[in-house]
């Protein structure tokens, strides 16, 4: 997708004015957090599991080359093939080649953020191949021609009423003319439309939640079972995944699985957890004839050893989204690229550059709840601050903001002068705030006063009063 992260402020204004979006976000806010809390509280060893999960990923990242090579060797030994893609362009080309070699006209797709990252659908369409999204959320946004707004709930920004409209519009061609309004009916209709597509697809493309080095296995977790049908029914299964999805062992994957669903949806486990190892073997009842893994780098290897390495521990659970007050106010699209929420605010600058995305790591109050709930203990605020440092060095803020900061810092480093200037400022503001004790507008602070008043200072500074021995 074309990034609009540089238009963040415009995107925010639109998001805040979008009544449907605000309705949808309100529901997210209420649902996910309570479920996660309940799931986490019910598992006494949750904190210990988090520590284990962090250790596993840190270890893997320290020996990433080794584990990736092991993974490739074992995929090959199982009759599959690994393809290395350095850039999104490489990934798209490899996938297209594989689809064309399979003579594909339609491909079914399980939910994959990497496919979004490389903008796979428009590329396949441009090359005469029809991609069919099978995850309900992805299916909805494919109909709406929109990017996902949440890494685990791509259509979370849509209200049921909007989905009803979309289905009514797009399912007419299949003879479905009745407008449905109940959630269950909508799901049933989507299922009915999708069923024959699974059977017609020549290739199935899925993402991966884990790649297991010791066995050459890819793992997906879903709640709808769509991933299983996507990868088992067509003759060719293509897994598209990024490098950091690899873990050393099955045991490691199962450890991380125990924190994944709890953090994401508050489930103990997702409804389906599916392990795929190579193509169908003689005697297997089902499975694809060909099994490919496309491994995408797209700048991730450059993050190793940098201030941002820890983001590579991310397991895409979405907990940081669900607990973020900024995300809850503006939704995912305002971030302007594939990844949104706190993890997106850290990852996006690494992928599209800080120049184009400096608002994302800046537009947070550093409330720290993302880090508090992250099962992988990723220090998201700290990394956002590192991006802010880069943005500051590159002078990406407005001139006004830079000057305000510089002038303030100049005085803050000089206590005597600071006292003199603040004495005057405080006196002026207290005068401005009379007689109500607050101000409704103030030069240079329209960002604040547009939505709230600014309480006025009491009149003289504490330091002045303290030094004159005046005490109440």
């Amino acid at each position, binding site marked *: 997708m074309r990034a609009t992260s540089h238009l963040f*402020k415009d995107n*925010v204004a639109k998001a*805040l004015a979008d009544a449907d979006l605000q309705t949808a976000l309100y529901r997210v806010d209420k649902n996910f957090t309570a479920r996660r809390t309940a799931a986490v509280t019910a598992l006494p060893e949750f904190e210990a599991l988090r520590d284990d999960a962090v250790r596993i990923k840190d270890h893997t990242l320290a020996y990433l080359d080794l584990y990736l090579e092991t993974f490739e060797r074992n995929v090959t030994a199982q009759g599959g093939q690994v393809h290395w893609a350095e850039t999104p362009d490489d990934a798209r080309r490899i996938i297209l080649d594989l689809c064309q070699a399979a003579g594909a006209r339609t491909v079914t797709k399980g939910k994959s953020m990497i496919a979004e990252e490389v903008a796979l659908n428009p590329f396949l369409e441009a090359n005469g191949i029809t991609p069919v999204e099978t995850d309900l959320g992805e299916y909805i946004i494919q109909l709406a021609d929109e990017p996902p707004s949440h890494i685990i709930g791509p259509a979370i920004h849509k209200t049921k009423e909007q989905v009803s409209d979309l289905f009514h519009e797009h399912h007419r061609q299949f003879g479905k003319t009745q407008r449905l309004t109940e959630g269950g009916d909508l799901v049933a209709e989507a299922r009915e439309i999708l069923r024959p597509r699974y059977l017609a697809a020549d290739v199935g493309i899925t993402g991966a939640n884990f790649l297991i080095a010791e066995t050459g296995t890819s793992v997906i977790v879903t709640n709808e079972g769509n991933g299983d049908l996507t990868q088992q029914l067509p003759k060719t299964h293509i897994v598209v995944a990024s490098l950091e999805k690899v873990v050393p062992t099955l045991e490691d994957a199962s450890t991380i699985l125990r924190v994944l669903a709890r953090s994401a949806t508050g489930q103990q486990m997702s409804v389906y957890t599916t392990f795929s190892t190579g193509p169908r073997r003689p005697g297997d009842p089902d499975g694809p004839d060909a099994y490919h893994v496309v491994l995408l780098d797209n700048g991730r290897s450059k993050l190793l050893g940098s201030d941002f390495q820890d983001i590579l521990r991310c397991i895409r659970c979405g907990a940081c989204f669900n607990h973020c*007050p*900024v995300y*809850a*106010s*503006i939704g995912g699209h305002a971030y302007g690229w594939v990844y949104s929420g706190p993890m997106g605010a850290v990852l996006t600058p690494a992928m599209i550059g800080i120049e184009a995305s400096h*608002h994302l790591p*800046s*537009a*947070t*109050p*550093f*409330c*720290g709840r993302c*880090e*508090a709930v992250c099962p992988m203990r990723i220090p998201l605020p700290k990394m956002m*601050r590192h*991006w*802010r*440092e*880069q*943005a*500051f060095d590159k002078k990406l803020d407005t001139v006004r*903001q830079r000057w305000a*900061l510089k002038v*303030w*810092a100049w005085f*803050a*480093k000089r*206590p005597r002068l*600071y006292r003199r200037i*603040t004495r005057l400022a*405080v006196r002026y503001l207290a005068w401005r705030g009379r*007689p*109500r*004790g*607050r101000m*409704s507008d103030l030069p240079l602070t*329209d*960002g*604040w006063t*547009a*939505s*709230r*008043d*600014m*309480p*006025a*200072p*009491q009149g003289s*500074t*504490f*330091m002045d*009063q*303290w*030094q004159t021995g005046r*005490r*109440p």
Partner: protein
Amino acid sequence: MTAGPRVGLFVTCVADLFRPTVGFAAVKLLEDAGCRVEVPEAQTCCGQPAYNSGDRRDALAIARGVIAAFEGFDYVVAPSGSCAGMIKKHYPGLFAGDPDMADAAQDLAARTWELTAFLIDVMHIGALDARYEGRVAYHDSCSSLRELGVRSQPRELLSLVDGVTVVDLSDPEVCCGFGGTFAAKYGEVSGAIVHKKAAQVVATGADTVVAADLGCLLNIAGKLKRDGSPIKVRHVAEVLAGMTDVPPIGEA
């Protein structure tokens, strides 16, 4: 009189400029608890605005000043989780690569406390000489809650004040949307967040909302007053010290 610990008060820039009452309330609470309180003259701010704006150089320079100003005190106490958190949790990281300063930063961090946590955890306060008639909602600041793990202490202290009924907000772990420069730079987002927080304050039925961080309080008061709410907004230290004869925040 036995010599209590020598405490340096880190006034915080917001209390210094906007609400000296908070500074005096902190002094009173500390002195009543038996501390010898001093207010080093060379303090201005903890440096957080620079630090969080990516201006590491100025943040370091300001932090150096704070470290020097508070040398030698048994404890450093701030009536703010945010500023105490900056000194306690971020200074050591700022100077981690500076062998000349690393020890001093660590040392200051170890001596620094948020006011309510200090009164309970260090001074073991068991009684307060204060009275406040009201149903008081307590707002947890993000830095108190998550950086410093302060949750029970301010509530415990409020329960020692005659006449106070403490109530909790429905989402006590959710940010009020202040976030320092964030509130001005991304005012629309910040405004949307405080809109929800103010609604939660109103929903408690409280007549007063207090917190241990003036940043949150300016934000919440600004929103409540813009909306015409009669709910009074005060720093928790004012209620604990019985210094509630001055107008609440954002009122005259």
